[in-house]
Structures are given as C-alpha cells and as structure tokens.
C-alpha cells in the first residue's frame, strides 16, 4: 500500500470522530497519540508479508502479530498481522470461510471454548498479550465485548439481560444496575422503545430491537473494544440502518471490529477495511482507499464481485 495516498483518502468522518472521542476516554497515552495518525500503523501492518509494523503507536488498540490459528489439524488463519487503531471501526470482509469470523473470535479468545483449537502468535490489547497464560479470560471478555450475527437475548427480562454482565462482575446494587441499564439502553438507542417495559421478556422484542438489546448488553460491561460478527445480516434494511447509525455513534467511545458480508455496509460504517481470503489477510487499509484503489488483485476481484 502506498503511503502518500493513505492520508489523502482518509474518510471524512474519521478525524472528527477521533477528536471528539479523545476527551471521553481517559487513556493515559491518548493525548500524545492523537496527532500521530493511526493510519501510519496501519500502513505498515497492512502488508500481508509481515513487514515490520509500527505498532508502538500509542493509539493502537489491538495489535495482531503472526497469528496462526488451527481447528485441530486444519489451519484456518495464516500469519495474520494487523493493527486496529483506537476508536475506529475496522471492517473485516472476504468470502465465506475466509477466516474473518475466526479471526474476530481470536480477539476475545472466544475460540477457547471450542475444543481442539490452537492459536500461535501474539494479540496485544493495549500492549498486553491476551494469550499470555496469566491473562484472566473472563476479565478480557468484559473488556472486549462481542455482538453476534443472530441476536441472542437470554430468555429473561430486558432488565436482566442488560444487567447480566454487570452482575457477573459483582455489581449487585439495584440503583447502580438501574443506572447501567438505562445508560446502556440509551447508548444503544433502545431506551425510548423499552423504558416502560423493562421487566418484559426480551424474547418479545423485534429482531432489530433484540440486536440493539444485545449491543446494549455488551455496552453494559463497559468494554473498550466491541467485536461484531455480521450484526445486521439477519435484519431488514430499516433495522440495519439503525444498527449502522449506532455503530457510527459508538465509534466515538469504542474501538469496533466488525465482520460483514455486505461491502456497502463496510464502506458506510468503517474507516479501515481488512480483506481476508483463504485464511490470509490479503490487504488492509483505509476503507475508501481499499475500495477505490486496491493494491492486490484478489481484493480487486472480490470487491468488484468477480468471486465470493
């Protein structure tokens, strides 16, 4: 990927988003890093042939180095190197079975619960390797939230769904929980629709509402990163639009990695896009550039619809 065009093609929404969000998050190294463009780290990380990345950039949220992933004997990811800047949206695209969901699930060690899986390499979340043996996976997952393709409301009340994460981490005070529930639902743009029926079953909500409930439930644990696995693929266009608006809002406070099959969606919601093909990260860069001027042949073929 060529460096000069990087800066010129950055999405217009990107820099205001980053600047707005800076005061909201009290990361110690945030201030010094806002000037350092997140794209710089991306540029180097974007080369799929493991060129030395500039991952010391303080605004890097997730730093993936030489990750190989195996389901039993089957290798699903090959030497993935990638950095995700803080408070941005990175879309993962690629044909079915290319490893993008697998990759997403390595970021919160969700693959751990599948028997016979194995990871090589390092994934750093704010400079801490999440595959370090000393890492508490439970704590990690409350820092890295996840929203799934199918909405997965628990068969409980709306309130209990949202309060589930905080309760797990030991919040028992009713007033505190009420406050968290309201905040999360408001952040997920669902509060006005459900505020009068918080004790109703979450199963009674519509599909789009359920998905926003799941996002609210994830926000309730106060994560830094939100992983989304095709969050809108089962929704109608109106609900999809709401989810996309929501992602746009959430980017001010959270780092988001989203898997999507819908390239228009990737173009709409993300600042960066990574293209996966057959378990390899083929290309990564600012979304606009990747879509208008891909450097790899495979990327071009995919985004122009020649396969996948």
């Amino acid at each position: 990927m060529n460096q000069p065009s990087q800066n010129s093609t950055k999405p217009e929404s990107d820099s205001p988003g980053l600047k707005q969000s800076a005061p909201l998050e009290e990361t110690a190294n945030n201030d010094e890093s806002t000037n350092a463009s997140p794209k710089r780290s991306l540029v180097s990380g974007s080369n799929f042939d493991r060129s030395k990345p500039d991952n010391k950039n303080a605004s890097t949220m997730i730093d993936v180095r030489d990750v190989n992933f195996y389901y039993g004997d089957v290798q699903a990811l090959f030497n993935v190197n990638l950095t995700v800047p803080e408070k941005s949206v990175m879309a993962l695209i690629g044909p079915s079975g290319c490893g993008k969901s697998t990759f997403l699930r390595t970021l919160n060690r969700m693959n751990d619960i599948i028997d016979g899986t194995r990871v090589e390499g390092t994934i750093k979340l704010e400079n801490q390797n999440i595959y370090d043996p000393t890492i508490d996976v439970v704590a990690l997952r409350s820092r890295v939230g996840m929203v799934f393709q199918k909405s997965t409301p628990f068969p409980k009340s709306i309130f209990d769904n949202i309060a589930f994460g905080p309760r797990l981490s030991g919040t028992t005070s009713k007033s505190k929980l009420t406050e968290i529930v309201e905040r999360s639902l408001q952040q997920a743009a669902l509060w006005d629709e459900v505020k009068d029926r918080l004790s109703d079953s979450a199963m009674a909500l519509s599909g789009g509402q359920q998905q926003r409930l799941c996002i609210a439930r994830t926000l309730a644990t106060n994560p830094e990163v939100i992983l989304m696995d095709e969050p809108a693929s089962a929704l109608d266009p109106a609900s999809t639009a709401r989810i996309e608006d929501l992602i746009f809002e959430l980017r001010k406070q959270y780092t988001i990695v989203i898997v999507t099959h819908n390239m228009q969606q990737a173009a709409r919601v993300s600042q960066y896009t990574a293209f996966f093909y057959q378990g390899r990260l083929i290309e990564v860069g600012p979304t606009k550039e990747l879509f208008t001027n891909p450097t790899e042949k495979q990327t071009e073929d995919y985004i122009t619809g020649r396969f996948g």
Partner: protein
Amino acid sequence: MSSSPSPPSTDRSLEFRRTWTRTREQLIKFVLLLCALLSILTTIGILYVLLTNAVYSPNSKATAFFQEVSIWDFVTDTKWTPQYAQDRHFGILPLLIGTLKITGIAALIGLPIGLAGAVYLSEYAAPRTRNMIKPTLEVLAGIPTVVYGYFALIFITPYILRPIFSDLLGFEVKIFNAASAGIVVGIMIIPMVSSLSEDVLRSVPRSLREAGYALGGTRFDVSTKIVVPAALSGIIASFLLAISRAVGETMAVTIAAGLYTSNSLNPFEPSQTMTAYIVNVSSGDTPVGSIEYKSLYAVAFTLFLATLAMNILSQWVLKRFREEYQ
C-alpha cells in the same frame, strides 16, 4: 403414467408390478399403524379393566370396589386394613403417605444429582468423557429393580443408614424402612433425569452460551445462569417424568420398605406404598371377587390417575414454557 410409451408385450408385467408395489406399500403402512396403535389399545384395555373393577361393573352379577365402599371413605379414612376379618378400613391415606414419603426421598436425592450430572455432561464433559459416561448411566437404568431392592435391604440400611442415623445420631432405623427404599429409587431415577435433562440442556443454542461467555461469564455462570434457566421447562418436565416413575416403582420398594401400612412420616419405619400393596395382594392367596381383591383395582386406579396427572402436567409444562429459538 399410462401414457408412457412401452411395448405392449411388457405392459402387463409392468402393470402387475405396479399393483404389487402399491399393495405392498399399503400393507406396510397398515402393519406400522397397528404397531403404533398397540400401545394405545393396551392403555385403553388397562383402563377398562381398572374402571370395571374399581368404579362400576357392567356385569350385574359382580360389583366394583366403589359400589361396595364409598369413595368418601376411600379418600377420608385414615386406616387401610382390607385383609382384616373384622374392622376393615379402606382409607387410601396410609398407602398414599407411604408412596409420597418414598417418592419425596427419591426426588430429594435423584433430582439434584441427576440435574448436576446433566449439567456436567452437557456443559463440562469433553466429548470423549461424555461418550463414556452416558452409556454407563444408561446401564444403571437397565439394572432390574429387584436388584435395587436387595441393594437397599442388605447394603444401604445396614452399612449406610444405620451407622449414620442409628449409631451416630441415635434414631431407631428399622430393617425395612422408607429411607433406604427412597434412596435406591432416587438412584434409579438419576439416569432418567440426567439423560432427559442433558438432551434439553444441549438443545439450548450455542449462540446463547457464547453470548454468556462473551459477557465475561465463567463456565459455571453460563451453565447456571443461562443454560439451565433457558432449559427450565424441559428440566421440570424431566423431573415430573422421573417422579411419576418413582411413584410407580414397585419391586425395590416392596422389598426395601416392607409391607406395614402406617401414617407415620418417619422415614426409618417400614411403610407400604400403593404399588407394594398391589404386589402383596396379587401375589398372595386372595380369593378372586373378594373385597380385598377388588381393593387392588381401586389402588391401581389411584396410582394410574396419579401418574397420568404427572405425565400430563409434564407435557403441559414442556409446551407452555418452551422457549422458541429461531
């Protein structure tokens, strides 16, 4: 079909084969239907026998149990002494207490252990472990109940109950007692609860578990706060089925709990259940047609109603509270 162009010579043999195929299909369908109906017909037959002997006899020369003893007495009397020559009492209460006492003990033991086993199998066990344990549990279900009865009598009572409750705590533990029977019936229903509950636990979608893990849940959190509640209807249904099995359990109870009817709630005393009474009467030399003989049908009918009610309840629970996952 007939429009297919075929030479006239083979036409008749083809026609024959077609007819034969159709007939054979019909025949198979009929035989299968018969097999399916058989159990229903059996149930109807049993119900008929019970009703004609217990409630109302269509034969004018014979009388049913409730034509001689009022239902009111049956329900309210507190003594059950059909064998006595004089002072006969036909109150179902002592038998009911015996049954409930043993069922209660069995439920206390079998349901929690069975559910815990199901949670282990479905949430914790590696596939290989599960494949070893599940068949073993099912072997447990295949042991003849008479063996359980003797196990209670010659092992549970002398080596478990007596050392603990008699030697240590000072209760009097009779050799025939409800506790030992309840314990073995509890053990008997464990495989049933485990197997049925495991099926419903496993049918909880994986996405729900993943959502729980993604929110920072441990395996225990996910099992107890998501999977079990989500499968609750199925678990309750499996509980009810297991309880109705315990209510109907006969051989082990007859051997371990003795044949003494009592209204006592003390688990260390002998106590006769409805099923044990039926065994006792039908294996003895009770003359056919006597009131004692007929009382057997009244008890059997009560038992039938009890288990039927449990099964219907469990079906209803399953339907009513089933969460529909898309």
